[in-house]
């Protein structure tokens, strides 16, 4: 029941300009539009006209440097570039634009904290207010910002999907971003926004970011931290009933070949109860989680 309702929601709430807003009636943004497009491509029942209009919105919004802004204004490149790149990569004939997005990601990683922070971390790591390796770079929410888990995970997925198309140019950055994710992992497994400890006190993980990081690291399945984080994710889900967390978790389990019927049933119940607050990105992710095709996020094992 949920799948047709969610599909209808996305098709009904598409803005006149072809994009989708964070919730219905809001201005189109890149995150919502990219995820809605990925969701619609996973639904054979989706009408081609919605896909075409959404795709055109993304094409129109791409900056000359290959990036995407989150909204039309401000127009500078944003973290949502990774999602738009991933969405375009799923359309025949859009590979060149997706590659341009991937190249922008390679050139726009998070900023370093500098040599002083690096030295302090090497000499007196126990004295740091937060325990993160300042030398590792991933991706940030903003240009020239510090690296955080969610934008790093999106960029990792996009770059891993497109790395062969750019001749392996992302190899080094992918490796470093993977090390960053493991460095930021919470004690006992799992991830939060990207800080596992402040002033010696551990900060717990969140299910949604844990599932997303595990998706970005799915090709490293044999790694012990992944297994610990997977167990932590299951434990966290016992206490969380939300569309975002259940969608990312279902996708994560599905990509690992697990039976996800139980998770899909929980997801559908949750939708009945809350409608996921009408949030486009959550409804789109749920559609992807309910689909038998999770190809946009599938990465080849290494």
């Amino acid at each position: 029941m949920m799948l047709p309702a969610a599909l209808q929601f996305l098709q009904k709430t598409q803005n006149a300009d072809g994009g989708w807003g964070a919730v219905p009636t809001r201005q189109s943004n890149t995150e919502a539009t990219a995820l809605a497009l990925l969701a619609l491509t996973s639904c054979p029942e989706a009408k081609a006209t919605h896909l075409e209009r959404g795709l055109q919105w993304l094409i129109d919004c791409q900056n000359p440097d290959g990036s995407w802004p989150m909204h039309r204004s401000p127009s500078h490149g944003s973290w949502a570039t990774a999602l738009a790149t991933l969405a375009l990569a799923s359309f025949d004939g859009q590979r060149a634009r997706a590659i341009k997005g991937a190249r922008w990601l390679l050139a726009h990683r998070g900023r370093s904290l500098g040599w002083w922070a690096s030295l302090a971390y090497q000499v007196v790591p126990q004295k740091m207010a937060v325990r993160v390796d300042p030398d590792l770079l991933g991706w940030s929410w903003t240009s020239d910002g510090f690296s955080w888990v969610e934008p790093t995970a999106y960029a990792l997925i996009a770059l891993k999907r497109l790395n062969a198309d750019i001749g392996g140019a992302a190899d080094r950055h992918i490796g470093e971003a993977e090390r960053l994710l493991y460095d930021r992992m919470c004690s006992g497994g799992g991830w939060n926004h990207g800080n596992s400890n402040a002033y010696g006190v551990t900060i717990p993980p969140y299910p949604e970011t844990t599932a997303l990081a595990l998706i970005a690291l799915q090709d490293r399945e044999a790694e012990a931290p992944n297994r610990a984080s997977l167990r932590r994710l299951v434990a966290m889900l016992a206490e969380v009933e939300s569309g975002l967390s259940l969608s990312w978790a279902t996708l994560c389990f599905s990509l690992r070949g697990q039976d996800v019927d139980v998770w899909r049933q929980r997801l559908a119940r949750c939708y009945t109860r809350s409608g996921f607050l009408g949030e486009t990105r959550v409804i789109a992710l749920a559609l992807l989680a309910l689909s038998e095709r999770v190809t946009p996020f599938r990465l080849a094992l290494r």
Partner: protein
Amino acid sequence: MRRREFLLGAVAAGPAIAMLGGGSPTSRWDRAAYRKPLASRVVVSRAESYESPLIERIVEGIRLCGVNVAGRSVLLKPNLVEFDPQGVINTNPAVVAAAIEAFKRLDARKVTVAEGPGHRRDNEHLLRASGLQSILDQQRTRYVDLNSDDVSARALPSRFTSLGRLYLPNTVLEADLVVSMPKLKTHHWAGVTLSMKNMFGVIPGSIYGWPKNVLHWAGIDESIVDINSVLAMPRFAIVDGIVGMEGNGPIQGTPRHAGVLIFGEDPVAVDATAARLMRIDPAKVKHLRIAGEFLGNIDREKIVQVGEPIESLAQDFQVISQFRHLKGAW
């Protein structure tokens, strides 16, 4: 995260940073940004528990401050960072519920609750787990996620950061009265987090990220001042100090019962009073000291205190070692 936080925490910020950039103090804000009143009224109300008659207390607090809300659209901005079942991170939903009802009783045209959580993007979970969703359902009140709202650019009338301008949620810009509803808490980067720091939540995460790290790079105290200088007046503040948080706040601190609600139109004066209730000297809190120059009053003689005397309710809230200098004469 920024270098200073990584290395030492906010203590390294020090008073010297406030004056970086040189020039006279007035060069740091436009004349039009000056909004310091001759005197500021702050109401301190005793409220022992969340079962207290909160609606009446809040109606009384608003009235004692002389605020007329009839016919106005009111936006309540609680502090909803993330959920910890054992913690007291967020503004208690009972206070939000009472505020919704209080503003309705005073004939507000519309009451909306809005927040842009700083760490989590899972709004459904946050609202449900924190208990706020059931309040919104019961009160049939709209909630707006400020992280994903439509935005408009606004030039900053003060220049304590180099941000120059900020994109702000239209829901905030269009409200007739924005009510900051923080929790009474200490903060491991800013010393205290009250009605001014609570406005970090209006900065849209879709543009500035989670946590709103751009503001950390720009300087937390400086960002607090610049954000508060760009937000239109009049505003109002209701501080939930029934149970506050001491120590390693704003997330991992320890609950501390203080049994108080604080009200006022001048957010600087409200926060200065709240700091005194935690036995913290507001003049030593960097963003309060700067804001006290042009945005509002922190001097005791400029604050018209109504209700309970501070001395009868003040408690010695613990702070992390980096902020021990905030203690002392208050």
